[in-house]
Each structure stands twice: as structure tokens, then as C-alpha cells.
């Protein structure tokens, strides 16, 4: 990925929210940009040159092997994540952490974007704050994010 352009979007200042309680009592949600969706959800728009800023809500109860990976990027090996979706959306690993008490609980929903958003204005203004508000309303304490 030598051609990856440096981002023009420095976050200034970097926000900082303290973890309000120990991780073992915290509600955790996952966010991935691997372009995952459930079988009954519509695909991401792979034709939009600026990128599709929409998101899919992934229920916590989903059987992970049913998730569909439809990321448009040619810059990574799709076979690996298709053979184990936990590689980019580690829901099964977090279920194990939940059962061991390492985290308090998983949120009842998680979120998936398709990360190849070249023009992120709508992401910044609309869909990212929308997901953030939703997670806050769910009283999530901590969020783990993965690219692909």
C-alpha cells in the first residue's frame, strides 16, 4: 500500500474520554470497517467513487460465519477474512472475554462500515456522529475498532 495517501484529516485536539469503570464492568461495542453485513441487509454501494459512508447494524446475537464480507478494496486479501471473520470483526473473541469476565458485557449491537471512503465529509458530518450517538444511548462504555 505504498500509494496510500497521507490523510488530510488530523484530529485536533485529540478527544479523550476516560474509561468510567473497570473493563470488567464495562459495556463494550465493536466497530469494523471491513464492509460486513448480515445476509438480509443490502450491500454497500461499491460504485460510489467517493465511498459509501453508510453503515450496517450487526446484532450481537449473529452467528459470525453468516456475515457477508463485501468490501470493494483490491488492496487486501479477502480470502483470509472470509475464512475467519474474527480477523477483522472479533465478535467470537469478545464473547470469550465476556464469558471470562474480562469485559462486563457486549452491547446488543455493533456497527460495520465499508472503509474505502475517499471523500469522508458525509461520514464526518452524518454517519459517524449518528453511530456515536447510538452507542452513547446504548450506554456503551468502551469501543474497539478494527480496519481491514
Amino acid at each position, binding site marked *: *500500500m505504498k500509494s*496510500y495517501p*497521507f*490523510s488530510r*484529516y*488530523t*484530529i*485536533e485536539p*485529540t*478527544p*479523550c*474520554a*476516560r*474509561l*468510567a469503570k473497570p*473493563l470488567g464492568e464495562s459495556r463494550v461495542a465493536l*466497530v469494523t*470497517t*471491513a464492509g460486513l453485513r448480515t445476509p438480509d441487509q443490502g450491500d454497500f454501494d461499491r460504485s460510489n467513487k467517493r465511498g459509501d459512508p453508510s453503515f450496517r447494524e450487526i446484532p450481537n446475537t449473529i452467528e459470525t460465519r453468516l456475515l457477508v464480507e463485501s*468490501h470493494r*478494496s483490491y488492496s*487486501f*486479501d*479477502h480470502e*483470509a*477474512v472470509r*475464512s*475467519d471473520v*474474527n*480477523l*477483522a470483526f472479533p465478535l*467470537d*473473541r*469478545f464473547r*470469550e*472475554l465476556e464469558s471470562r469476565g*474480562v*469485559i462486563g458485557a457486549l452491547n446488543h449491537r455493533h456497527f460495520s*462500515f465499508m*472503509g*474505502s*471512503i475517499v471523500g*469522508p465529509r458525509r*461520514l*464526518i458530518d452524518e454517519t*459517524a*456522529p449518528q*453511530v*456515536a450517538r447510538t*452507542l*452513547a444511548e446504548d450506554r*456503551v*462504555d*468502551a*469501543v*474497539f*475498532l*478494527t*480496519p*481491514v
Partner: protein
Amino acid sequence: MCQQTVCLLQAAIERAGMATVSISLLREVTSVIKPPRALFVPFPMGYPLGAPNDAPLQHQIIAAALGLLERDKVPVLEEFT
């Protein structure tokens, strides 16, 4: 642009009051955008948690990332070793 998207989402979520940590596959992108907490992993694109069907390795990476959650002197960008 996955890495940029992750960083921008992370900032929005942290601004809404939740502690966040992300995996970084591209140190040069993460270090420019400066999200609150990120763990750089030395793996190729498409392999943010190391390897498919390798739960022990995935758990090691997740544990290292979660360990950054309590850090409040941000931005934090550490390397998984």
C-alpha cells in the same frame, strides 16, 4: 482508506463520551490523524488481528489493545510486539 475511516469513527465516538481503542495497520496514517488510542500491528492489510483461525494470537492482540483503554494521556500509538 480503511485506516482513515477507523480513525475518524474513533474520534466521533470518543467525542460522544466513550473510551475507544483501534487497531492500526498503517502507522503513517494513524500518526497523522491522531486518534486517541491505537495499537499498531506488523501485519499486512486484511490481517488486523494477525491470522485467521488463530484465536490465541487474536486474543493477544486484543488484550494489548484493551490495555491501552485506561490511558488518558492521548494520543497513544503503541506497537504490538
